[in-house]
């Protein structure tokens, strides 16, 4: 069976645009959470977010793309460029049907969509941009990345929240096992605009604190919800043999094991399925709990969910037996972009 490995990384994170900036900030514990600047959050019960700093879309993308892309799609395109450059892959040298794109998305292009909805209400249907037809859409990042790099092989989008980024990477492995040579995968999300913000507020899990240092404290007695962020990561996933054959400069990791489970309906009284997901992923990789060096937690920041996650980790690995980390406390929760970014 083909082995799927990661050979390139592209990062757009609130605490660093680009792998080097993000990694230095992460090692130094530098947070990218602050008061929202993309719109005026005064009057909203949550005012903090993680925004990607120093992003100038015109410096990275041609003028034709700007009128047709939401902010989060621009971030995704720049991350996809960076991932390919990091892997030293030149798509034009590969067969267009040997390369696919599988990304995750939780909300689509809300900022773009809000602007066009405002035009609809104030000026009527004639005022709405033709680009609204896809710029808001969940699948837009996959589509725009595919067009930009001429990747016409098996592609898709997973619409999901935090687990979405993992599902996308898992699906990339599935495609590679079925002989797609290379898949750009991961997720870049973000809807820090009034429309996106009220949608997130309705979920009831946003932190209402205005101090960036204490607003998002998962696994802490003071936990009071999370801070959202924008960004994520795009990864180059390749068949290991193909990567070796082209002389890939590095192999960062192998997608060794994966599993997903559904929690039972609340009324059933049966417990959550997270523990089983961990065990199935370990079994899929052919590993034992003792083989695992670190766990990157989901870190919901909601006491009951944190407890449930801590219980699952302890049950599988033993109490205090494995280091657990949550670097997303420095970026905010990036929804479908979170899992591809950390780790």
């Amino acid at each position, binding site marked *: 069976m083909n082995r799927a490995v990661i050979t390139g990384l592209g990062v757009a994170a609130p605490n660093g645009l680009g792998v080097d900036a993000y990694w230095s900030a992460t090692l130094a514990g530098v947070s990218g959470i602050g008061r929202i600047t993309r719109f005026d959050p005064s009057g909203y019960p949550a005012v903090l977010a993680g925004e990607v700093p120093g992003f100038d879309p015109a410096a990275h993308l*041609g*003028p*034709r*793309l*700007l*009128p*047709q892309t939401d902010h989060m799609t621009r971030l995704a395109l720049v991350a996809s460029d960076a991932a390919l450059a990091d892997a030293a892959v030149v798509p034009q040298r590969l067969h267009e049907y040997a390369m696919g794109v599988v990304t995750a998305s939780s909300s689509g292009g809300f900022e773009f969509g809000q602007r066009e909805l405002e035009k609809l209400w104030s000026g009527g249907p*004639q*005022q709405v*941009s*033709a*680009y609204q*037809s896809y710029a808001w859409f969940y699948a837009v990042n996959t589509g725009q990345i595919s067009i930009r790099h001429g990747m016409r092989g098996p592609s898709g989008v997973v619409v999901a929240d935090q687990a979405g980024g993992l599902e996308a990477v898992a699906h990339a492995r599935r495609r590679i096992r079925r002989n797609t040579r290379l898949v750009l995968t991961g997720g870049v999300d973000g809807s820090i605009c009034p429309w996106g913000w009220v949608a997130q507020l309705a979920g009831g899990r946003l932190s209402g604190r205005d101090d960036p240092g204490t607003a998002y404290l998962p696994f802490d007695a003071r936990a009071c919800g999370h801070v959202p962020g924008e960004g994520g990561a795009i990864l180059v996933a390749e068949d290991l043999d193909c990567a070796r054959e082209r002389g890939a400069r590095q192999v960062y990791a192998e997608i060794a094991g994966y599993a997903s489970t559904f929690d039972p309906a609340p009324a059933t009284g049966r417990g959550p399925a997270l523990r089983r997901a961990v065990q199935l992923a370990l079994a899929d990789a052919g590993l034992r709990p003792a083989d695992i060096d670190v766990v990157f937690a989901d870190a919901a920041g909601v006491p009951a969910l944190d407890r449930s996650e801590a219980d699952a980790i302890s049950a599988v690995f033993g109490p205090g037996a494995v280091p657990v980390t949550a670097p997303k406390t420095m970026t905010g929760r990036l929804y479908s972009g979170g899992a591809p970014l950390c780790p």
Partner: protein
Amino acid sequence: MSTLTMTDLTKLLRACAGDAEHADLDGDVLDETFADLGYDSLALLELSGQIKQRYGVALPDDAARVTATPRQFLALVNSLS
């Protein structure tokens, strides 16, 4: 309305679909195809919407298909105004 000129068209295109990436719209592009200039059918649909809004000229739905170049597009708009 007054006649739509290439200068007007260039301004509208840049505003609604973005500047051409592989050509200079201020150069002699009247007879270049929109495709060669990098504008797809959606860009022309967007342009048609702008023409309707700003000049009140309603272009037929297949305007993008029947006008391959800026010269043809201008001729169509000006014939309807």
